[in-house]
């Protein structure tokens, strides 16, 4: 294989026990991830999209190494010094309110090697300038900043340990449109400059289309479609991807909201459905959907759906 990947996930399963009886045995399991295979390419941006409860954030935790998967293997192809960093959705709660900004920014470095204060301050000043913060902010505290500036601090913190991979967990969904554009531009510039690999978790498809090279669509702990983002988002093959794309409000729509109502209830992840996970909500469901689906390569992407993989996409969209 000539593909330069920084991380490879193979058949990742993640189960969380819930409840327990008198002997401490769990009543059952919440199946958060159900067999994720992903190759994360160096210097690229992988978008992960899906509804709440589909396992996006659990996947982020597995990628970060915070959680050890119940099954499967994560292979990391980078040195021990370099690590994975994360930028969270809510910059309000993800920054330590009792630390001045320069401490916040250099915390990942400080936690590993206790370097002299002057050195850490210099590093913080350097990073603050990189993310567009003025040097005088270093001694202020996080509550003195607006949401956009706090997210810049969070990005500076993620950069401080010079990571290879940054997991961006909905970094702009708490921000206003004009500020979102500033942050997205900053992320793009930093990637070009430092050759970073991003894993961009989002539910905003238009941001994913703009920022990501590849996209993985998740449903109930599985990747149902994975491929180049322009290909997948322009011509989705999986019925779930299509439902997701059709649901996005758009400025260009002329016909209002449309009339057809779709079933929006997610199946429980405590007792996984038999057969195709998307069967109950799928308009194409038919023969063959009673068995578990595997990822099948199509021309431009991989799809986990028997109906589309077997037939031509024209027939499906009709």
């Amino acid at each position: 294989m000539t593909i330069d990947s920084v991380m490879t996930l193979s058949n990742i399963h993640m189960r969380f026990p819930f409840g327990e009886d008198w002997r401490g045995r769990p009543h059952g399991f919440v199946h958060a991830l159900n067999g994720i295979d992903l190759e994360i390419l160096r210097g690229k941006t992988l978008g992960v999209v899906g509804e709440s409860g589909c396992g996006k954030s659990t996947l982020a935790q597995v990628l970060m190494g915070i959680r050890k998967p119940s099954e499967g293997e994560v292979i990391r192809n980078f040195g021990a010094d370099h690590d994975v960093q994360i930028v969270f959705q809510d910059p309000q709660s993800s920054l330590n309110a009792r630390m001045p900004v320069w401490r916040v920014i250099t915390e990942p470095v400080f936690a590993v090697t206790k370097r002299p204060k002057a050195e850490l301050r210099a590093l913080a000043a350097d990073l603050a300038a990189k993310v567009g913060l003025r040097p005088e902010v270093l001694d202020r505290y996080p509550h003195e900043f607006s949401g956009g500036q706090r997210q810049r601090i969070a990005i500076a913190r993620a950069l401080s340990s010079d990571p290879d991979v940054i997991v961006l967990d909905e970094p702009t969904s708490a921000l206003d449109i004009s500020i979102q554009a500033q942050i997205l531009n900053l992320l793009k510039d930093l990637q070009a400059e430092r050759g970073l690999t991003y894993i961009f978790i989002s539910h905003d498809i238009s941001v994913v289309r703009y920022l990501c090279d590849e996209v993985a669509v998740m449903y109930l702990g599985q990747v149902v479609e994975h491929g180049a983002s322009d290909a997948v988002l322009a011509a989705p093959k999986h019925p779930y991807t299509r439902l997701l794309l059709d649901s996005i409000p758009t400025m260009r729509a002329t016909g209002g909201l449309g009339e057809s109502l779709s079933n929006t209830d997610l199946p429980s992840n405590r007792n996984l459905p038999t057969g195709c996970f998307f069967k109950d909500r799928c308009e194409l469901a038919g023969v063959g959907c009673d068995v578990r689906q595997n990822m099948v390569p199509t021309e431009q992407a991989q799809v986990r759906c028997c109906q589309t993989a077997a037939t031509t996409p024209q027939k499906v969209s009709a």
Partner: protein
Amino acid sequence: MADPVLKIDGLEVLFPGFSGDVHAVNGVDLDVQPGEIVGLVGESGSAKSVTAMTALGLLPAGAFRQSAGTISILGRDVATMSEREMNKLRGGDVAMIFQEPQTALNPTKTIGKQMLRVIELHSNLRGLAARDRAIELLKDMRINDAEEILGRYPFELSGGMRQRILIGMAFACSPKLLVADEPTTALDVTVQRQVLQLLHAKARQTGASVLFISHDLAVISQFCDRIYVMYAGRVVESGPAQKVLGNPQHPYTAALIEALPEDANPGEPLASIPGTVPNLVNPPKGCAFQARCRHAHAACDSRPVLTDVGTKHQAACWLREEISA
């Protein structure tokens, strides 16, 4: 034309603070006609919610001061109404839907109890008749097993389901005006679409007016007939949704639309708006958008007023004034 359902004239609201008063609303004129779906769009801090909350008398007494302006709901001046009359109005002729369906419902009471309370308080339906009404409302929101849902607690239900229940509850007494404050922001896109469809259909069916508050331009463009774009406590542009968003006349509206990643080319940087919203403790004397505007010039030091830039389309910008003059 019939009397407007909601009319706000020259509203100014300020919040006293230690470092000076925060001038949240700085002269907002707004009206909602019967049966109309009106959008209020703007970024955080633009006073969308404060405007609506002031109109319904929902801000905590003492925490704010209305320094100017009049508000009338259904032809009655809010300032002359007693708290008792306001309470009768809210939930009856005027209903609200909030952003967080989790916090808007009482976690210790079943859905049925909460719905029946609203219905019994504002109509003369009692007992089984009220219960039938609740079931009918839930059925309208496409909740299939309505009888069973009435016995459930809010935590047992999904966010989309809770929001549908709240919409059903809001329509319990056939309101003339519904204020929806970011009703779908906490929901997934597929659920958002469903909730918006149901809300739209129900409003059209009952002829209720809707004041829809959102920061999402795309949602607003699909949902509303007419919109007001707000910035720093002022209305900067208003008009039919398609016109304002299709052919924006105020530089702020135009910049917002450009900043959306929707049409952006992945290879190019996004057109972001530099800077941040002005500090409202000392609101700018002139145009509030001046400091971030690429067309700013000398005239912007004095405050522009809303002027006609097309049929029913208004913008508060000196550029348009000069063009139309």
